């Protein structure tokens, strides 16, 4: 019995996603090298910087658990940023913009979902193409009207705090909690796990497979829209270009968090700490004054080492 118990603890230990380890290691390093930064206020500001990625990851992990992927987040963020900053809708209230953003996210998510689940086209390519179309659409619009300022109210809200926590960070935590409860406690969560594990078995169990995949994508679109709102509020100014690397980073954070295509051992908090690890890594390297090539190399090695550590530990016997 003791042996079996020990075995179970070991099993569980082996499943700790690499992101927890990286996060702990980086936090420790920061604490040793820059103890004055270990202050909740300062950390709050740092975490706030990464919130858009964090929210995007919530959608990414959901679609990855149903063996899909969403690379359209960059385009959604750019489009929403554009129409908030372009002045194309003079006098629109903040709530109007929020509603428009959410509607955009839902429409794009639905489109992605239907293309992937109903038409069965390649998820990588269809979402990448959607992103390209959206970026292109913004470029087209900006030839008639380049983007300008973001209404001041967004920045004002971005800088508020609730319960001593920066509002964007609180939003992220709440969304993560909701997503975690949603996946762990609802019937939909079971459907997601089933579809990810075996699509036809899910079908034969009576799971509405296509609907599950579509809903996952709709939620991912919604998350991208929320990420866009936070991102827009944080930058106060319009842009014609966002990094296409944002969705790839979201995928990386998700995998580091222990969620891969079809499997979700890291749950929702694994990717959460994956995102936090990226934030800490950035801060650590910036405060240590690592130069650009050095940053790239260190970043590469840390992600790789964490993944190797996890990979070796969880290798099947």
């Amino acid at each position: 019995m003791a042996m079996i118990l020990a075995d179970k603890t070991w099993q569980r230990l082996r499943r700790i996603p690499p992101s927890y380890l990286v996060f702990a290691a980086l936090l420790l390093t920061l604490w040793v090298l820059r103890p004055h930064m270990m202050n909740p206020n300062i950390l709050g500001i740092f975490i706030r910087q990464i919130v858009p990625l964090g929210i995007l990851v919530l959608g990414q992990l959901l679609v990855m658990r149903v063996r899909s992927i969403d690379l359209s987040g960059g385009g959604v963020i750019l489009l929403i940023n554009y129409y908030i900053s372009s002045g194309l809708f003079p006098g629109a209230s903040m709530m109007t913009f929020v509603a428009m953003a959410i509607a955009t996210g839902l429409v794009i998510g639905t489109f992605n979902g239907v293309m992937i689940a109903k038409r069965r086209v390649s998820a990588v390519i269809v979402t990448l193409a959607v992103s390209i179309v959206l970026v292109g659409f913004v470029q087209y619009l900006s030839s008639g009207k380049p983007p300008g300022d973001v209404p001041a109210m967004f920045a004002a809200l971005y800088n508020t705090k609730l319960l001593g926590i920066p509002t964007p960070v609180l939003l992220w935590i709440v969304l993560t909690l909701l997503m975690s409860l949603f996946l762990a406690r609802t019937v939909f969560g079971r459907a997601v796990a089933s579809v990810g594990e075996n699509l036809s078995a899910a079908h034969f169990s009576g799971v509405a497979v296509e609907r599950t995949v579509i809903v996952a994508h709709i939620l991912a679109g919604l998350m991208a829209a929320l990420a866009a709102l936070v991102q827009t509020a944080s930058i106060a100014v319009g842009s014609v270009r966002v990094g296409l690397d944002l969705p790839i980073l979201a995928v990386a954070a998700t995998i580091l968090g222990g969620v891969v295509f079809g499997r979700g051992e890291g749950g929702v908090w694994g990717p959460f700490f994956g995102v936090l690890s990226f934030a800490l890594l950035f801060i650590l390297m910036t405060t240590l004054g690592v130069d650009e090539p050095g940053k790239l190399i260190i970043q590469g090695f840390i992600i790789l080492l964490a993944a190797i550590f996890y990979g070796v530990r969880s290798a099947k016997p």
Partner: protein
Amino acid sequence: MKPSYLKWLLGQGSRQGLWSLPLFIALAIALGLSLTTQQFTSTGNLFNLITQAMPLIITAIGQMFVILIGGLDLSVGSVISLSTAILALGGPAYVLIPAVFLLAALIGAVNGLVVTRLNVHPIIATLSMQYIVLGVTRILRPVSGGTVPDIVIASVSGTLLGIPLPVFWGIAVLLLSWKLLHGARFGLHLFAIGGGIASGMEKVAHNFGVAERRNILLAYVTCSCFAALAGVFLAGRIVSGDPNVGLLFELDAITAVAIGGTQLSGGVGSLHGTVIGALVMALLANGMNLTNMSPFIQTTVKGAILLLVVGLQSRKKMGL
């Protein structure tokens, strides 16, 4: 025999994926361009087109090898940049060119080892490799410049019997990759491994006695070496080393592979499809230039056509 030929054309009853549709689209674009512009069909432009498409064709073929085993290599863009940086170090070609390929093979081998022996997801393994290689490239060559060996430049810009050399590059690359994919057991084993992975039977090929890990490793090495080859070609074209020349090229390569009907979940795909996919992308770029399309709408048009191509490629199974 006849019906199976038709099936082959439609990509059915085989593992080649849906490549006939992109072929049709490529032909449609080409036809449209030759009707609407005078320059498109000029030999000069057609040779331009081949030259312009070559780096993508080469990189995409390499990428296809890892995609066939359900993998992905995000480090190819950095490998391309690194290759140009090394070639521009200044030195004899007979040292630099082997060095480029050795290094690329090493990078591919590390990718492959990390994926197969250390059990790391390919996206993570190759993304970290992308960062590391880009960092090293930036140290080697912080900004573009340097001198590329003359032979490299000549091999890209010269002609033989009045035919531009890139045409011969194309023929050589096709012969090499045809041999690897269809002429050797290697290619068949990649299909086997990929088919197993795609249908959730990871160990089946292994149980059949296929050296699974070694072949996966070799696929990553192949991919990296093809990227290096594209790097050599590009170095000859931009006549310098450049730390950013391969930036985001991995996405273009993956897109080209997918447009050609290869499935990202592994086990289904074809060489001709990949070449067609790369040609669709090159035709789009060339066509938009020739029709003087405003740069502000080019991205939309490119995205829309991609969307159209994949939108029509509906498959049986859901997936990446």
